[in-house]
């Protein structure tokens, strides 16, 4: 009888249904987290804007200290990469995209004879580079869902240490969040700090009506700059972490939505196959009964009993067709 096949199909459908419920739940959770992550990106912007503006003002007011963070290296023989990925998978190509891009950049540097150092954020980043036997200077994990400023400070400290100890440049590899449907991997220079960006902020500030006279400083501009530049680096790293986190949730939502849709489709197809199997089984059974009944009718016994059975099975068949 074909009911064995039917039972197998029914079990598969049930398991797909369970998986679908999980992916659906993950999709909804990711969707709600994107909104929160976006709000955090927005909340962090005033601080980083203000710090940038103050640095620009300091620089234009002659506080242009010869700070290492502002000095362009004469020669670059070693580049540090800060790669930001997620702690968890199930988010489509999110982790792989940023990590592969980082690996390619390292390979391109190697072709030009530059050495590398790695600062990694996210368990998946650590796993990826550890598996490929890269040298990892520092690794952080456990906060890709919801990075805090303190987390950013840790990562920034590790990057700064490399910068101060032999790395001529620090690059930041992360996934930029443009909108719900648009994120892209970016590898941007992180240290030395981009003075072009400061000039830009300065321009924006003066067009908005900069200070009438020069600034008064307390203490010396150079001393303030000295204290402010690390803050600027931290704020930039923090906003990169937040954007990466928003991108992660968006990627996860998309991946889980695709998984839910696939499960739904699989379920529909399997249900169709299962129904056909059941109908086949019933049809075969009725043919057998009818054949048997006819044989019996010729001998003239137990006709009533058989016609009842046939009616019941036929009703079953029609129910299944519906």
């Amino acid at each position, binding site marked *: 009888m074909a009911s064995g096949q039917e039972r197998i199909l029914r079990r598969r459908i049930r398991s797909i249904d369970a998986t679908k419920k999980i992916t659906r739940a993950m999709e909804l959770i990711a969707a709600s987290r994107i909104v929160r992550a976006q709000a*955090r990106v927005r909340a962090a912007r005033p601080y980083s804007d203000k710090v940038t503006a103050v640095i620009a003002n300091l620089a234009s007011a002659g506080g242009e200290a010869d700070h290492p963070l502002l000095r362009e290296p004469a020669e670059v023989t070693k580049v540090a990469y800060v790669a930001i990925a997620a702690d968890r998978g199930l988010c489509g190509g999110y982790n792989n995209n940023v990590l592969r891009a980082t690996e390619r950049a390292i390979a391109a540097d190697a072709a030009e004879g530059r050495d590398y150092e790695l600062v990694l954020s996210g368990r998946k980043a650590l796993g990826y580079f550890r598996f490929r036997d890269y040298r990892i200077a520092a690794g952080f994990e456990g906060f890709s869902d919801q990075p805090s400023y303190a987390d950013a400070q840790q990562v920034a400290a590790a990057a700064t240490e490399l910068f101060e100890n032999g790395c001529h440049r620090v690059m930041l590899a992360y996934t930029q969040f443009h909108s719900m449907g648009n994120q892209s991997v970016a590898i941007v220079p992180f240290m030395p700090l981009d003075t072009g960006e400061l000039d830009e902020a300065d321009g924006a500030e003066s067009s908005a009506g900069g200070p009438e006279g020069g600034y*008064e400083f307390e*203490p010396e501009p150079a001393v303030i700059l000295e204290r402010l530049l690390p803050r600027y680096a931290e704020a930039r790293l923090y906003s990169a972490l937040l954007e990466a986190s928003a991108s992660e949730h968006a990627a996860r939502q998309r991946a889980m939505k695709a998984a839910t849709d696939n499960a739904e489709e699989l379920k529909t197809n399997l249900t169709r196959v299962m129904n056909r199997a059941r109908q086949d089984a019933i049809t075969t059974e009725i043919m057998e009964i009818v054949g048997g009944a006819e044989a019996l009718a010729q001998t003239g016994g137990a006709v009533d009993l058989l016609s009842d059975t046939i009616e019941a099975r036929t009703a079953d068949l029609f129910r299944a067709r519906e």
Partner: protein
Amino acid sequence: MQVELVSPEAVLFSGECSQVVTRTVDGDIAFLDHHAAFIGALDIGQTQLWASDGIVTLALNRGFVEVSNNVVTILSDAAYAADEIDVAAAQADLEAAQAAVAADADDDEAKAALAWAETRIAVASAD
């Protein structure tokens, strides 16, 4: 004048104030309306904002202040109002810091921790 108190994670205060008193590394400073453009590095200490609905006192753990065009912007990693301060934790920090300073009088980090604990307790108890 407009006052903005901004931490890396959020804007903590934004509104009109008649006066702002804060402490730079060189000493206390007050800002009234139309103060000259100013940039300063803040020390650990109390900051008071004369807002429209009363004086707000905050404990600030370093930061920066910028004044221009009648807007005072205070940037700080840690700023707490009196009701946000965990006095018991501050007290514990105070004792730990006192012990550390007693053990090594040149430990700048311990001295900063001590000043930060004292500031928090002062702000919390002034209320």
